[in-house]
C-alpha cells in the first residue's frame, strides 16, 4: 500500500502542510492481540495505554504492561507501523509522579508519539524528552486554532485530535489556520459532550475521564430484574429500564432514557449510537485532515480487526478513486454490527447538531 510512512521518519518542523505526508489510519488496541490485529489489517498507527489511571480507558483487564508494550512496539515497528501511547488523563494533585513516570517510560520504550492533555505534563515532556513527539489529546478540548496553536507555541505539539463537536466547515477552518496536523475521529462510540469538559460521570460515581480515566465505571453499575423490566443503575441512579423485547445496552449515563417535562422515557441527551464518517472520508482528506482515528481500546480483537480492515480499504479506495469514491454497502453493513445500539450517526457533521 502506498500510504505507509516509515517509523523513523520524523517530520521536519518546517514541513507543515498535511499534503506532504500520507493520510494515516489510527487504530485502538487494549491488548497485544488487538494491536497485532490492527497492524495485520492495515493500521498505520496503533494507540495504546498503560494499566493505570494515566489514560482515558482505565478499565479492568485492559491495556498494556511493560512486556506487552515492548512486544507490541517491536511487532509494529518491524512492519513499519507506529505506536502512540495515550497519557491523556489529568495528573492529580497528590500523585503527579505516576504520570511523569509513565511519560519517562513511554520515551524509553520507543513509542512514536505520546498523546497528552495536561499542560504541566507537556512541559515536563518537552523539557525532559525534547525528541519525543507530542500529540494533543481530544481530552485537551481544543476546538479552535488559537487553542491548538498555543499548545504548539508552548510545547511544540505536532498533532491535535479534535473533539467530536465540529462541522466539516469548522474542521476546515481549523486546518487552514494551524501548522499542527489535525486528527479526527472516524468511527466508534460517540461522546456527545466535548471531551475533557464532561464531569457527568464523577457527579454520579465520583470518577470521570479527567480524574480517573473512566466514564460510567463498571464497578458502579448494577443490573436488576424487576416487574417493570431490566433496570440499569449507576451508583443507584436509574439510567435506563429495558423491556423484554429490547436489547439492553451499557448504562453510559448520557445515553440513558429519562423524563423531561411531559416527554417521558426518551433519550434526552443522546441515543446509544456510534459515529461513522466513512462517507465523508474523501472530503476529510481533501480539506487537509492528516489522520482518522478509530475509537475503541475497550473493544474486542474482532472489532479492531474488522473495523481496521474496512477503513484501510476505504482509505485506499479514496486514494485511487478520488471524487468517484463511494462508501460501499458491504463496508457499512460490516461496521453496523459493531455500532453501539447498531445505529450510526454523522454526529456534529449533520444538520440537527448545527
Amino acid at each position: 500500500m502506498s500510504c505507509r510512512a516509515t517509523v523513523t521518519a520524523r517530520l521536519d518542523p518546517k514541513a507543515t502542510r498535511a499534503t506532504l505526508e500520507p493520510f494515516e489510519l489510527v487504530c485502538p488496541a487494549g491488548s497485544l492481540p488487538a494491536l497485532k490485529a490492527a497492524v495485520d489489517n492495515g493500521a498505520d498507527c496503533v494507540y495504546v495505554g498503560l494499566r493505570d489511571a494515566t489514560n482515558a480507558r482505565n478499565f479492568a483487564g485492559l491495556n498494556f504492561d511493560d512486556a506487552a508494550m515492548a512486544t507490541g512496539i517491536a511487532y509494529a515497528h518491524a512492519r513499519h507501523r507506529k505506536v502512540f501511547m495515550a497519557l491523556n488523563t489529568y495528573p492529580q494533585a497528590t500523585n503527579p509522579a505516576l504520570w511523569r513516570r509513565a511519560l519517562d517510560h513511554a520515551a524509553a520504550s520507543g513509542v512514536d508519539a505520546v498523546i497528552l492533555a495536561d499542560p504541566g505534563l507537556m512541559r515536563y515532556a518537552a523539557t525532559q524528552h525534547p525528541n519525543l513527539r507530542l500529540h494533543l489529546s481530544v481530552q485537551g478540548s481544543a476546538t479552535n486554532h488559537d487553542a491548538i496553536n498555543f499548545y504548539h507555541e508552548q510545547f511544540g505539539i505536532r498533532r491535535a485530535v479534535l473533539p467530536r463537536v465540529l462541522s466539516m466547515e469548522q474542521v476546515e477552518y481549523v486546518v487552514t489556520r494551524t501548522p499542527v496536523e489535525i486528527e479526527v475521529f472516524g468511527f466508534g462510540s460517540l461522546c456527545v459532550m466535548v471531551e475533557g469538559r464532561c464531569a457527568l460521570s464523577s457527579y454520579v460515581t465520583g470518577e470521570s475521564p479527567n480524574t480517573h480515566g473512566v466514564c460510567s465505571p463498571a464497578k458502579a453499575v448494577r443490573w436488576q430484574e424487576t416487574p417493570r423490566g431490566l433496570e440499569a443503575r449507576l451508583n443507584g441512579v436509574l439510567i435506563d429500564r429495558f423491556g423484554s423485547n429490547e436489547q439492553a445496552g451499557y448504562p453510559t449515563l448520557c445515553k440513558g432514557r429519562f423524563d423531561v417535562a411531559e416527554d417521558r422515557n426518551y433519550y434526552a441527551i443522546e441515543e446509544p449510537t456510534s459515529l461513522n464518517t466513512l462517507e465523508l472520508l474523501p472530503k476529510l482528506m481533501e480539506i487537509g485532515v492528516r489522520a482518522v482515528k478509530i475509537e475503541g481500546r475497550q473493544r474486542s480483537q474482532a472489532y479492531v480487526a474488522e473495523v481496521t480492515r474496512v477503513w484501510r480499504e476505504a482509505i485506499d479506495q479514496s486514494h485511487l478513486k478520488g471524487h468517484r469514491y463511494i462508501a460501499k454497502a458491504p463496508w457499512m453493513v460490516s461496521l453496523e454490527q459493531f455500532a453501539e445500539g447498531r445505529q450510526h450517526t454523522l454526529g456534529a457533521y449533520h444538520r440537527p447538531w448545527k
Partner: protein
Amino acid sequence: MEMIASSAPATHAMPRLALGPPLYYWPRATMFAFYEAMADTALDIVYLGETVCSRRHELRLADWLAIARSLRNAGKEVVLSTQVLLESGGDVSTMHKVTGNGDFIVEANDMGAVRQLAGHVPFIAGPHLNIFNADTLRLFAQWGATRWVMPLEMNRDDLATLQAERPASLATEVFAFGRLPLAFSARCFTARHLDLPKDDCRFSCLAHPDGLLMKTREGEDFLVLNGIQTQSSRVYNLLADMPDLTRLRVDVLRLSPQSSNMAGIIDLFDVARHEATGAGRALADACALQVAPACNGYWHGRPGLDHVVQTL
C-alpha cells in the same frame, strides 16, 4: 467545633465573594434588572458575559460593557468571561473582542482565550481549564494568571496540596454555590427536547430561567438541560464547609446566579464568611432560598451529587 487558627491574620481569613457569569438565558430587561440589584449586595467581584451559547444575544458585548461600567462605579471588581466552547470562526472573533477589550480583566474559559491573554495582560483562569496539579498551576502563573478557579470535580484534599504549592502571585477561587455546569456539547438539548435543530432553536432557553429539569424514570430529579450545557439538578452549596474554605485560605468564593433569591443567598454567604462557625445554620436558611436541594460531594472527594453533613 473547628475554629479558625488564631495565628492566621484576619486578612487571610475572610474570602471575597464573586458572582459567576450568568449561565442561563434571561430576557434583556430581566438581565439588566438583575445586575442593578446585584450592585447593592455584598459582592466583591462580578463576572459578566455569555459563556454558554453564541446564539444567545439578548445582550451584546456593548450591553455587557455598559453593565460592567455601572457595576465598577458601584465598587465591584468586574471580570469579562469568554465562551467555554468555541466552534465557529464567529465564536473565535467574539472571543477576541472580549480578550482585547482593553479595560476589564478577562476570565479565560478555553485555551484559545489563554493564548490571546498570556504574556500580554493579567487574566483569570476559569473553572473548565482542568488545572489539576501544581505543574500546570505554575504554568498558568507564568502565563500571567492572577487567579485560578478550581475545577468543579476537585476535592478539598487535592486543593490543600495545591494551596501549599501555589505561586505567591496566584489567588484561588472555588465554585461554592449553584447548579454545577457539568458538561458542554455541540448539541443543544433544549432544542432537542422540542425536536428543533440547533440553528433553529427559537431561543427556547428563554422559557427556562433556571434550566430544564431532567428526571430519571422513577421521578428523581437528576440533571438540568441548559442549551448546550448540562448541569446538576442539585445546587452545589459549600456554606456549611466555610471552616474548610477559610482554613485552606481560599481567596474567592464563586456564587453562580439563579433567577430568584440571589441577594438572599449572597447575604447568607456574607454572614458566614464573617463568622464561619454559624455556617451550619446558614445552610438551612440557604436551602429555603435555592431552587433545588443541596449537594457538596465533590468537595468531600465523593460523587458530586452527595450531600455530606459536617459534624462541626
